[in-house]
């Protein structure tokens, strides 16, 4: 894998921030996009633009075919059984809301339990919280240990006869914990409990095989997988998507509409109401091709190396503390520096062209658990290099200088 060749595919890396080359370490927030994706987007709008599905003129036929090609690519990318199991949404947050809302409608009653974990992003908590508010459901949080790993034995203990669904992240956007989803699904399967996986952070960084995981739902955001903004993906086992009621209602998701009765289209159209992010879905196909052109194993290897390199270097800096030490860690590195607030770190490293994130990263529960109000986070993408890490570390040293720490 030639990292320079990869980096050169991302036009943004020719840009300067405050006169310095951009060191982008905020990929867990959103990734940068390769030229092929941007070219696809631009080409489609300039040469072939049309809405899909509804019209039957040549432009519409072409657009519809390309849109469906992306669906097929995603099916293959995550190894789904059928492309009908792939629903396009606006982001992973909507994907999770779709499941929480439709599943909740028919399967959650007062006193029923929803099991999530202390690692969850707000997007995998708030939608379930709504069922607490509207249905009187109970939300339980599987605890983590100080390393940032879910304590599986405790998760098991929290399952009762009232547990109706388990919703869990595949990869923590704070600690980088890679969660043993297969193990959790096996536990759930024995009790016939469906499992939703928040795959926002995993999709760009580890191999996803929904057949092997055997999970019921899997949520992804294209913009974190080197794709455009505005596109989310929901994988759902066909039996679920067929059984659950529709979500957003409108054009394109109906079968027959009468003044007293409406019947709905079959999946996946049933869940794709209104005009979709057509151009963005089509361009996302190039993101998948980009990932496949490198090979997920090569991506994993590169990012693992870089993560280890970064962890070692960061640990050597005085008063830097890495948050979490999970068994299996991806390139998400949250840290604090005694005496400097994460926002001050972010501002200071920004002067060196280094983009990191500071705050609770939409994980207040986790930060409460760790007794922190905020952390700084450097997160790695396939385009990052050891030099990026070196510059980050130098910038952190500069924080210590500005704050006159010894």
């Amino acid at each position, binding site marked *: 894998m030639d990292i320079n060749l990869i980096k050169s595919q991302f036009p943004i890396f020719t840009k300067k921030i405050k006169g310095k080359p951009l060191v982008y370490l905020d990929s867990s927030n959103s990734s940068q996009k390769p030229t092929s994706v941007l070219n696809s987007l631009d080409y489609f709008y300039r040469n072939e633009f049309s809405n899909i*599905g*509804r019209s*039957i003129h040549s432009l*519409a*036929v072409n657009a*519809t*075919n390309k849109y469906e090609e992306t669906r097929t690519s995603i099916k293959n990318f995550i190894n789904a059984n059928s492309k009908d199991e792939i629903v396009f949404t606006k982001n992973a947050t909507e994907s999770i809301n779709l499941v929480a809302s439709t599943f909740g409608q028919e399967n959650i009653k007062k006193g029923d339990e929803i099991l999530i974990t202390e690692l969850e992003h707000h997007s995998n908590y708030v939608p379930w919280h709504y069922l607490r508010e509207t249905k009187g459901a109970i939300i339980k949080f599987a605890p983590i240990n100080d390393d940032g790993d879910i304590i599986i034995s405790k998760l098991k203990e929290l399952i009762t006869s009232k547990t109706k669904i388990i919703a869990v992240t595949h990869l923590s956007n704070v600690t980088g914990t890679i969660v043993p989803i297969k193990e959790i699904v096996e536990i759930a399967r024995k009790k016939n409990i469906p499992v939703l996986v928040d795959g926002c952070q995993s999709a760009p960084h580890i191999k996803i095989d929904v057949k092997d995981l055997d999970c019921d739902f899997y949520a992804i955001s294209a913009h974190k997988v080197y794709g455009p903004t505005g596109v989310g993906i929901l994988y759902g086992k066909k039996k679920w998507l067929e059984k659950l009621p529709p979500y957003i209602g409108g054009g394109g998701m*109906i*079968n*027959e509409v009468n003044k007293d009765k409406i019947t709905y*289209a*079959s999946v996946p*159209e049933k869940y794709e109401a209104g005009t979709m992010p057509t151009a963005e879905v089509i361009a996302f196909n190039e993101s998948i091709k980009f990932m496949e052109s490198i090979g997920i194993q090569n991506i994993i290897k590169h990012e693992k190396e870089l993560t280890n390199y970064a962890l070692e270097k960061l640990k050597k800096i005085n008063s830097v503390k890495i948050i979490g030490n999970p068994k299996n860690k991806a390139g998400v590195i949250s840290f604090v520096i005694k005496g400097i607030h994460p926002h001050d770190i972010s501002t200071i490293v920004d002067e060196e062209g280094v983009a990191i994130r500071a705050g609770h990263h939409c994980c207040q529960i986790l930060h409460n658990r760790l007794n922190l109000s905020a952390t700084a986070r450097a997160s790695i993408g396939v385009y990052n290099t050891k030099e990026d890490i070196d510059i980050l570390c130098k910038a952190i040293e500069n924080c210590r200088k500005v704050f006159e720490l010894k």
Partner: protein
Amino acid sequence: MDLKELYQDIILEHGKSPKNFGKCEKYTHEAKGHNPLCGDQVHVYLKLNNEKNVDNVTFEGTGCAISIASTSIMTELVKGKSLETAKKIVIDFLNMIKNTQEIKSNDLDEDQKIKIMSLSGVKQYPMRVKCATLAWHTLTSAINGKKEEVNTEVID
């Protein structure tokens, strides 16, 4: 591509004056079909006799020339055939349209072969394939005694 390959005279003829239109008497099987994209709708009525031969087959419905003609031609081709032969003709037709295979059946006479081939122009118009196949899927559904309406969004 000449539009006349899609809209051959046979098609226009059947589209304008479909054969076997209406609800036949004493039908033994029926099924409905729907193409949500176009709004084409078809209702097929099938009468099998004791020897499992297609005594009669008729239809009601609305749709474009392709869809009406295809339904009309279908009824002509399977009427009087044994059920097994009818099934083979359906498979042959769908293979022709969707996989561009040749018509293999020995059960059609020359005139009938010309009729069925008159629908092959649709292969060049992907959005119109469903118009042509709707009736045939619906016939299969009627034969199999399925309760659900055929929906080309699901089938094709």
